[in-house]
Structure formats: structure tokens, C-alpha cells
């Protein structure tokens, strides 16, 4: 401050300017970055706003193309109509159930698998890890998997949605890396010196230090469950157990297909009205839960995913 104060006014301005002013190239770069990010943000935001607006607009006016940004003819009929369909309401509940239960079960399994694999002393570690990775590239295929689920008596139970494919090897690898990086061997030794058992150490030391990776796992698994329909399709034949995605598929995709396959126009009309009425409100219902969860997991998410994936 005092040094600058002794400089003649012209030179002082120069010094301050040089420290703050961006070069031309920097300015252009920043402008490009902001434009690109802005466009990207728009590209992501616009469909969401459109769907939200369309879902609270008069369906006739949506079909007429009058809605392009804000709602036209505000109404909540589309949301009320959802409650007319028992299968949609119950499937929403099922989806929440599967997402929560599936995420918890899968996260516990992942932590239990990843921690031992992150420790140096585990005998046969390479072999076990190899076996895990093997399943990433080769799988038994649909029919054998179906047979296993069938023979285990899981078909048509909620367990069929939670147990098969519960564990994602990808998540195990991320979690293992996280443990290797954040829980140094020295900490384990310190624990042992103090008389802590392996389980005690895991429970008292590892878990409290692993909030970010637990959050990441929970989120990955929950979103995976929320979006998945294939297991439900293959393993469930009781409508009361169906998750939302299966019902969504049926309404949104089925009613779009080939009108010439449909022998009856009144049926076609019925499907069309159903789809027009419910399309957007269903999409909104389908995206709300993940949207609600993201902000809470966000801060852990970045940290956990970065540490887990960067250093291997």
C-alpha cells in the first residue's frame, strides 16, 4: 500500500490495471465459456420448464401447440387424473420403496465388499477383485439369470427388485479406491494398537470418515432403481408390485405405436386421450424424487465421486 502510494499517479494506475485487467484473449475465452455454459444450461432447463408448463396447461391447448414456455390455460386436471388410475398411484409408492430399500441394501453390500478389498493384507484379494471385474464383462444372460431368480422363489416378490443385480461392481471399485485413498494403513495400525477389532474399526472409524462415498453410493443406486424397468418387467407379474417406470412405458410408448395395428378407433382414441392427458404430469411425477434428492447429496457427491474415481 505504502509502496504504491509513493509511485507517481500514472504508474500507479498502470500497476493496478495490470493486476486486475484481463487480457483480450482471456476476455474472449470467458465470453465463450459463459456462452457455451449458458447454452448448455438452456438446453437442459428448457425441456424441464416446457414439461412443467405443459403439465399444468389445458391439454387441448398443448396439443394445439400453444404452449412453448409458460402454461396456457392453467389447470391441475392432469395431476388429478393421475389419481384415477390406481396402478399409477401404487406404482409410484412401489418405486419409492424400491429406490430406498434397494439403495440401502446395495450400499451396505458395496461397503462390505469394498472395504476388505481396499486393505493390503487380504489374502486372495486379486482373485476376488478379478472375479468381480469378470462379471462386468461377462454375464450369464437373461435366461439363466431368470432361472436363478425363479428357483430362488424370488419371482413376483419385492425381493426380485432388490436382490438380483443389487451390487454394481463399478460402485465397488469407486468405493474401494476411496477407502484406499482416505483410510491410510497407519490409521488401521493405530486402531489395532488400541485394541480395535476389524469390525470395530470399520464401524467406529471407517464409516464416520466415509460419508461422501456413502452418499454417492446411495444416490447412484437410488437413481438406478428409480429409472430401471427391466428387472420389474422380467420378474414381476403382479400389477401391485410394478414400479412407476413400467407403467410409464406402457402409457407413453405403447399408446404411440403403430395405429394400423389397432383394430378399433375407439380404443385408439381412448389411448390418445389418456396419453395427452397424462403424458406431462407423469413425466413430472417421474422426475421429482431424483430432483428432490440431488441438492442434499450434491456436496458429498462431488467429493466422493472425485476421490473415488480420480486416483486409482
Amino acid at each position, binding site marked *: 500500500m505504502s509502496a504504491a502510494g509513493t509511485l507517481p499517479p500514472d504508474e500507479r494506475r498502470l500497476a493496478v490495471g495490470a493486476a486486475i485487467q484481463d487480457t483480450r484473449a482471456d476476455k474472449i475465452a470467458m465470453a465463450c465459456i459463459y456462452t457455451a455454459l449458458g447454452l448448455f444450461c438452456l438446453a437442459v432447463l428448457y425441456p424441464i420448464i416446457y414439461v412443467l408448463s405443459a403439465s399444468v396447461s389445458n391439454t387441448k391447448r398443448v396439443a394445439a401447440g400453444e404452449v412453448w414456455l409458460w402454461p396456457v390455460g392453467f389447470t391441475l386436471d392432469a395431476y388429478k387424473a393421475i389419481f384415477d*388410475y*390406481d*396402478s399409477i398411484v401404487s406404482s409410484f409408492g412401489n418405486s419409492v420403496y424400491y429406490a430406498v430399500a434397494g439403495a440401502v441394501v446395495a450400499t451396505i453390500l458395496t461397503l462390505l465388499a469394498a472395504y476388505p478389498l481396499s486393505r493390503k493384507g487380504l489374502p486372495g484379494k486379486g482373485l476376488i477383485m478379478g472375479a468381480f471385474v469378470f462379471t462386468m464383462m461377462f454375464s450369464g444372460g437373461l*435366461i439363466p439369470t431368470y432361472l436363478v431368480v425363479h428357483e430362488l422363489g424370488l419371482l413376483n416378490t419385492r425381493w426380485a427388485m432388490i436382490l438380483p443385480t443389487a451390487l454394481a461392481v463399478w460402485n465397488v471399485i469407486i468405493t474401494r479406491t476411496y477407502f484406499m485413498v482416505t483410510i491410510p494403513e497407519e490409521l488401521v495400525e493405530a486402531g489395532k494398537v488400541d485394541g480395535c477389532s476389524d469390525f470395530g474399526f470399520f464401524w467406529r472409524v471407517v464409516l464416520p470418515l466415509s460419508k461422501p462415498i456413502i452418499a454417492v453410493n446411495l444416490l447412484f443406486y437410488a437413481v438406478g432403481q428409480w429409472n430401471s*424397468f427391466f428387472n420389474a418387467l422380467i420378474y414381476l407379474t403382479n400389477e401391485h408390485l410394478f414400479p412407476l417406470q413400467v407403467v410409464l412405458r406402457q402409457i407413453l410408448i405403447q399408446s404411440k405405436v403403430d395405429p394400423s395395428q389397432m383394430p378399433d378407433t375407439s380404443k385408439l382414441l381412448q389411448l390418445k386421450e389418456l396419453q395427452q392427458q397424462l403424458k406431462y404430469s407423469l413425466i413430472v411425477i417421474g422426475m421429482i424424487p431424483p430432483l428432490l434428492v440431488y441438492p442434499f447429496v450434491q456436496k458429498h457427491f462431488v467429493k466422493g465421486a472425485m476421490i473415488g474415481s480420480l486416483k486409482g
Partner: protein
Amino acid sequence: MPNDDFRPPGLSRRSLIAGALGLTAATAGGGLLSGCSGSSTTDSAAAGAGQAAPSVTLGPKLSTVQYPQGYVGPVARTLKPLTTEKVTFKIVVKQDVTIGDWKTNAFTKWLEQKTGVHIEWSQIGGTDDDVMTKVNAMIAAGDIPDAFLGIGFTRSQLFLYGAQGLFTDVGQYIDAYALNLQQAMKDYPDTRKLIQAPDKKIYSFPGINDCYHCRAIDGRGWLNSAWIKQVGLAMPQTTDEFREVLRAFKKADLAGNGKTIPFAGYKDAPIDPLLMNPFLYDPGEPWLVVKDGKVDVAFDKDQWREGLKYANSLYGEGLINRDVFTADEDQLQRYGNAPGKPLIGGARSNYWGNFLDIDQKDPNARWRQYEACPPLKGPNGVQYAAWDYLTVGVEVAHLVITKKCAKPDLLVRWADAQYELEAILRGYGGPKYAWAKKGELGINGKQAIYGFDATWNSQKNINWSQDNPMYRSQDFRLGERVQPNDLTFEKPLYEQTKERFFPHKQPQEMQFPPVTLDQDQAAQESELRTNLKGEVNQSFAKFMTGQLDPNDDGAWNDYKDRVEKIGVRPYLDLQQAAYETYNG
């Protein structure tokens, strides 16, 4: 998402293709697996068949029901219980939000109460392709129900699984017990030919749904009659008049602000049958026709090229929407439902609902302005309506009984009971029907038989949609009451089809029938058809939009070479063989 990595990769797609093909690794395994798990059930099935066949009789006719003169179709009778002991069948069905829970569905309860047959439902969710994936998995795993209801097996799939012994040949039971179906087969003499596999066996209980206007669905287009009046012209009859009308629409700019689209098409309703039938008979994809007993394709003929030139000139003049090959139905709806005035003077679509909202209550609704554009007469006098004689009407696979079923005879009688008039009405419509009074008229202007409140289709959980076996003859369908104050779209649809399309139908011998392929043929056919379809559709789009010039001999010959290389010949040989099998 990470979970995806763990899911059997690519399998859904593979089985999806398999669904279309009717064969897959799953199937091969299926034959094997079911071979061992099924031995015990085959015995019981045989025992069921061997039981002394009770002479089956139908209940007495209901006297309250009015029938028009010369009526051919289902008759209302008192349904008799089919069994006194408690019988339960396990049946796999599709989930459908409009049907709701099959267990609590109104028709389920009614049918059980009438027949005494209890059904335990397994419901499969998702799209039709999803459903086939699941069904293939079930079959492969030997996890087989007593029957499949409303699952869309193709004729080739029925034959494949039937020949493996997985699906029961119901022919003998139909002959012994299905009195209603027997009558329907007399009413529709082609039925047996259409439902039997190449080995003369019948692997599914059929449904008959003779939808009159559906027979003209492939080439149907619509024009705004109010606009035609405004420009002082008449409904076009020839290709030239069609062009004149579209030009006049464009010139008069009836939508305003230069937004007028004289005629629109969209990707889900191919426009080629509309534009080609003035030049040659074009039934639409896969463009197979029969000429003097020989199977042929339409898309490499010189007349096809003439059609391309016509399509190209219409498009070149801006008379057809730019996005005719890419627009989806939502887009078409935006053109048709545009606030104030519609943007389109006409559209190629199966019915009004594809490009407009249908308001059946409003006598001045916009959809009522649009009338079916009759098949156009080409410069050489060709004028075909591409009438569908064979694939509309008799449908296979409504009820497929498997070898797991211990009492196939009873299940056949259960299916046959659904051919009774009241059961039909409740099955596809629901309990809110009413018998027509004497003097009330139906869609065809004769005495009506029954009527529904126009809002029936907004209710849920009351019917089985159209999944079950039923017998809806033409007279039955056209016997639906039309109320002067409640004008549904069925009547104009029927009348315009009858007046404008029926007179121009091509001879029935020209239509390629729904044939059944064996396993090898099906695999080959599927690949060839996919490739041919891609090439023909793409080239049609290119010729029409001017990316290729149909007047240029080089471009046309290149196109013919391309389809030749893909394999028109082997494709036709295969279809010819199947066609000959079909004709016995």
C-alpha cells in the same frame, strides 16, 4: 447409471428381435427345458381330452334383443355355468392402465360368475416388445402358465412353439365344444384357413373383429371439405384434380400468414399407399402383391417410378409439409389443432384423431370438416383402394393354451362363451351397454342391436379392452346404435369408407395373405424384410424430396440395383413358398 452395467447387456434388444422372429437362443433352450418339465402335464392334458365328451349345448336365446334383417353375427343367449367344481386356471395377460387390475375388473367378475371358471392372473407390464421379452424368458425357463390371453404371438411364433408341443392344438376341442366359434367359422368361411398353421393344426383360439373401415386404413387421406368449397372446387377424383385442390389451398392461403400446408403426412402413417395407388396396387409395407399366383413386390416397377415422379412434383411445389417423413403425431396435432384455423388442408392418416382432437359432442367440431379423399385415378386410369381383405377380421393368438393346462377343453369352452353377444359387449365395452329398442338405427342405417353411452371409454377397470377372444362381425359392429344427439365418428367413418373406398377395392387375389413361416424362413425373412424396408423407405423419401431425381434414369436404375442386391429374389422365393403352403 451404474446399475445398467450389471444388467445383462444387449439382451433386451436381442430378445426384442427374437420377439419378432419367434426364435432365439432362449427358444432353443425353451424346447429343451420345457421338454423335461412338461412330460407329466402332457399326460393330464391327454386325460382331459380323453374324458367322455359331454354333448355341449348353447343356452336359450334372449328374446329381448333386436336384430336387423339378414343379421350375421353373435347372438345373445343365457350363459350356462361351464363347471360345477371349482376350477382355477393360471393365465398370463398384459397390464393395461385402462383395464386396471385384472382381478377386480368388472368383466372378470361377471365372467367368473357366469361360467364358474376362476382365473389367476399374471400381468406383464411395459410395451408389446417388453411383453414378448418376458414371455420368451418364461417359456425358456419352463415357467409356463395354463394360457396366454391377448399376448401378440405372430403366426410364425405360434407354429414354432406349437410344433414343439408347447402350445396345445385346440382344433379338436373347437370341433367338439366351441359351438359359437363353429358358427362364426360358417359366417366367415376363410377363418380356418387363416388360423391354421402349415401342419393343419390350430395353436390358438382366434378372435374375429371385422372392422369395416379398417380395411381401407392404409391408403386413406383426408381433405378439408370447407376449404374445398371456399376455393370453389370439388373433392378431387384424379391425381391432377388432387394437385389442383392443393395448389388452390396454397394460393388462397386459408390458414393465413402464409402458414398454409396444403397436405400433411407424418412418419407413423406412410404416405406411399396414398400416392402410389393411382399408379399401381400398393398395399403398403412390405409392398407384397400377388399376380396370377406369383408373389411380387410393387417397389421396383415402372409404375412405382411414375408414382415417385408425382410425389416428387407435389413436394417440389411445396404442397406437402416439409417434415412429412420426420414429423410425429404430436407435430401433426399441432398443425391440425392450431388455434383459430387449422394449418393443414388435408392429411394422410388413419382417422381424424391422428391430426385433430375429436370432440364427439360438438356438431361443429373441426374434425367434421375433413372428409376422406377417395382413391385417386391416375393418368392411366389406375385407381385402387388397397382394400385389406385378410389381415383385418380374423385374428390369431387371442387365447393360447399351453401344454401345462390340464383341462384345455374347459378353457376352450370358456373362450367360446366369450363369443356370446352379451359377453362381447361387456368384454370390450363394459357393463354400460343397453339393448336397442325397435326402430333405433345403427351405424349402417339398419335396426340397431345395442348402444353405448359415448363416454364409456373414459372409464377404467370395466372391460378387457380387446385382448380376449370375441366375435364382432361386421353386422354386429355396424349394429351399434347411433343417437342423433350424440354423433360419434364411427358412422361417418363407415359411410365414407363404403362410398369412396369400397367401390375401388382391388381384386382379393391381388392381396398377399398373412402367411406362416417356419423357423428358418422366419429368420431369413426378418433380416431381408428389415433391409428392404430401410432401403425402399429411404429411397422413397429421397425421390420424393428431390435428393434423388425420379426423372433421372441413372438414379432409378441405381435404386433398382440396390434393392436387387439386398435380395428381392430370395425374399420373393421365400414368400412364394409360404404363400403356396398357405393355399394348401
